[in-house]
């Protein structure tokens, strides 16, 4: 007797079995890992849950962490709609942060206060888009593998940022603190509800709506989808795939850049260590967990943010490495990939003497 996958007559997934199929192996993997370092799995999960949802402040922190995840998730999703793999969100996020910080440090005090925030938003978007420009051009012109080029630019961006805050941009009054001086007040993104929730949340939600509309209901979105699904059909319809590839990668990079701007001007209020903490890579998980649907991205980002905040609590309370959240994220993505097959296939038990259909 053995198990066999076979094609279903009707494709589709039911949400409850899907959730179970995904959650069970992930929770189990986490339990094994807690046991491995001598922690009680149930207690550890309780700490994570408490840390993410225990009180109003913790909940608000989940929202705060979800902001960059929404933006990088959208960034990965919009590129993946066209079968482009933007693995460079981390670098684009950093570059958006650098642009915003440069503007906030050296130009913001010379401008009238109401003009500063809109320009900051533009600067963040431009920084991220610029960082995606070279991989985009290389892809469109010579079909250079964008997975590798965007990824390599991550390392370059992080080194560049460190060079800036350890070197020319370092706070002269900082007594060796690795970071720039704090920005002027006008360059702080407004915060809400006496928490750290900042303007970035509304930028991210707006971007999600805009992408949902433009991907699903405009000719541009139609072109992008067709080029992604079938490059041949796109060529036949005379769509300029190269130009669309560049446009989509610039938008994708710009969204990641906005995430960096939000972190720098909404949370840190200076350029400092702790900007490149993996939100760019988390974006990949968010995008695929949301099945590339822009409206699902904010919800999934919340879920992942809860996981990350829970992991941080685990480190603070139980002194377990916070990287457990990274492990669980990886397991989550793998479980989803494996479960997706059940939208078109089902498992059947086949006896050895039975002939397959």
């Amino acid at each position: 007797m053995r198990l066999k996958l076979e094609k279903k007559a009707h494709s589709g997934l039911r949400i409850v079995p899907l959730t179970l199929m995904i959650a069970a192996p992930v929770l189990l993997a986490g339990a094994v890992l807690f046991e491995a370092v001598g922690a009680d799995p149930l207690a550890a999960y309780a700490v994570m849950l408490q840390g993410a949802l225990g009180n109003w402040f913790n909940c608000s922190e989940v929202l705060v962490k979800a902001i960059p995840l929404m933006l990088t998730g959208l960034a990965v999703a919009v590129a993946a709609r066209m079968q482009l793999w933007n693995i460079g969100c981390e670098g684009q996020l950093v570059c958006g942060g650098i642009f915003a910080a440069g503007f906030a440090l050296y130009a913001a005090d010379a401008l009238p206060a109401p003009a500063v925030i809109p320009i900051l938003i533009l600067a963040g978007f431009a920084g991220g888009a610029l960082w995606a420009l070279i991989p985009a051009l290389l892809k469109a012109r010579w079909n250079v593998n964008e997975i590798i080029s965007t990824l390599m630019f991550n390392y370059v961006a992080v080194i560049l940022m460190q060079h800036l805050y350890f070197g020319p941009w370092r706070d002269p009054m900082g007594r060796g603190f690795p970071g720039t001086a704090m920005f002027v007040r006008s360059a702080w993104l407004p915060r809400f509800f006496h928490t750290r929730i900042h303007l970035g949340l509304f930028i991210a939600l707006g971007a999600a709506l805009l992408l949902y509309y433009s991907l699903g209901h405009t000719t541009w979105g139609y072109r992008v989808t067709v080029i992604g699904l079938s490059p041949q059909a796109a060529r036949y319809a005379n769509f300029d795939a190269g130009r669309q590839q560049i446009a989509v990668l610039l938008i994708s990079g710009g969204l990641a850049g906005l995430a960096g701007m939000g972190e720098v001007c909404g949370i840190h209020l200076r350029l400092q260590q702790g900007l490149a903490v993996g939100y760019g890579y988390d974006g990949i998980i968010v995008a695929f967990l949301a099945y590339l649907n822009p409206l699902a991205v904010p919800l999934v980002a919340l879920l992942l943010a809860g996981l990350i905040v829970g992991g941080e609590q685990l480190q603070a309370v139980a002194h377990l490495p916070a990287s457990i959240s990274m492990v669980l994220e990886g397991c989550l993505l793998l479980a989803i990939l494996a479960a997706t097959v059940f939208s078109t296939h089902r498992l059947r038990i086949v006896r050895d003497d039975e002939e397959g259909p």
Partner: protein
Amino acid sequence: MTENFAISLLAAAVQSGTPILYATLGEILCEKSGVLNLGVEGIMMIGALAGFMAAASTGSPLLGFLAGGACGALLAAVHGWVCLSFRGNQVVSGLALTILGSGLADYLGTPFVGRQAPGFDPFALPLLSRVPLLGDIFFNQDLLVYISYLIVPLMWIFLRNTRWGLSLRCAGENPDAAVANGISVTAYRWMGTLGGGFLGGLGGAYLSLAYTHLWSNGLSAGRGWIAVALVIFAFWRPERALMGAYLFGGVMAFQLRLQAAGTSIPSSILLMLPYALTIFVIVLASWRRPQSAMPTSLGVNVEPTE
């Protein structure tokens, strides 16, 4: 001074190129069978940690090296399971593997930061080390470097002249033809995936056991991704992977030496060099149309037919 400097630089190029060479050879094996594994970075990370942990607890560096390979294969098995058994997307699964491997290495490795483990040290190979120039560059290395010299021709022969190697390539080039000839595509793809993971794990173990003799978080620092790029640069050929890996080893060694010598070039520019070179190399390769050498069914999942 210049001649000695050049020789020691080239010897260092071989040493720092070796982990990349192991990983590149592994990825070639995997991709030849039709499976794209972008999780090499995570596999190297796990290999480095597992190798270090095993060497520290058993006292045997060789056991550590093998444990690195075994754990690399174990992580690759997750990729095989998701892509070959459940037909998940190979690109996304590989990325997930990198996240999982890096996270896991960080999570389990934290207690081992700063610990000591026995490692591999260079020794002169009798006779060969006395060959002028070449002896100093290639035959004053550690055991694992010598093993890598053997793997390159063995893999070349395996892929060209053995029944298993040809079947594995057929599974990557033309799965339908493979099935028609009674070759189990799934079995050979598993072979490529596990073998590739094993070699990637060995590459990681080289880092902690021979290159740094230490475990630290983020040890592989993008070398796994460089290996993925080098596979394209090498046109999926083991002998060209050797050249590419030593080129990168050379740049890394050169960059470290310049930093130590205290040049006027800012250290951040030097640190960027390997990553900038990767982009340059991948552009160069793209001009020569690597699609012609790429296994035709790379990354494409097949329906099981049995």
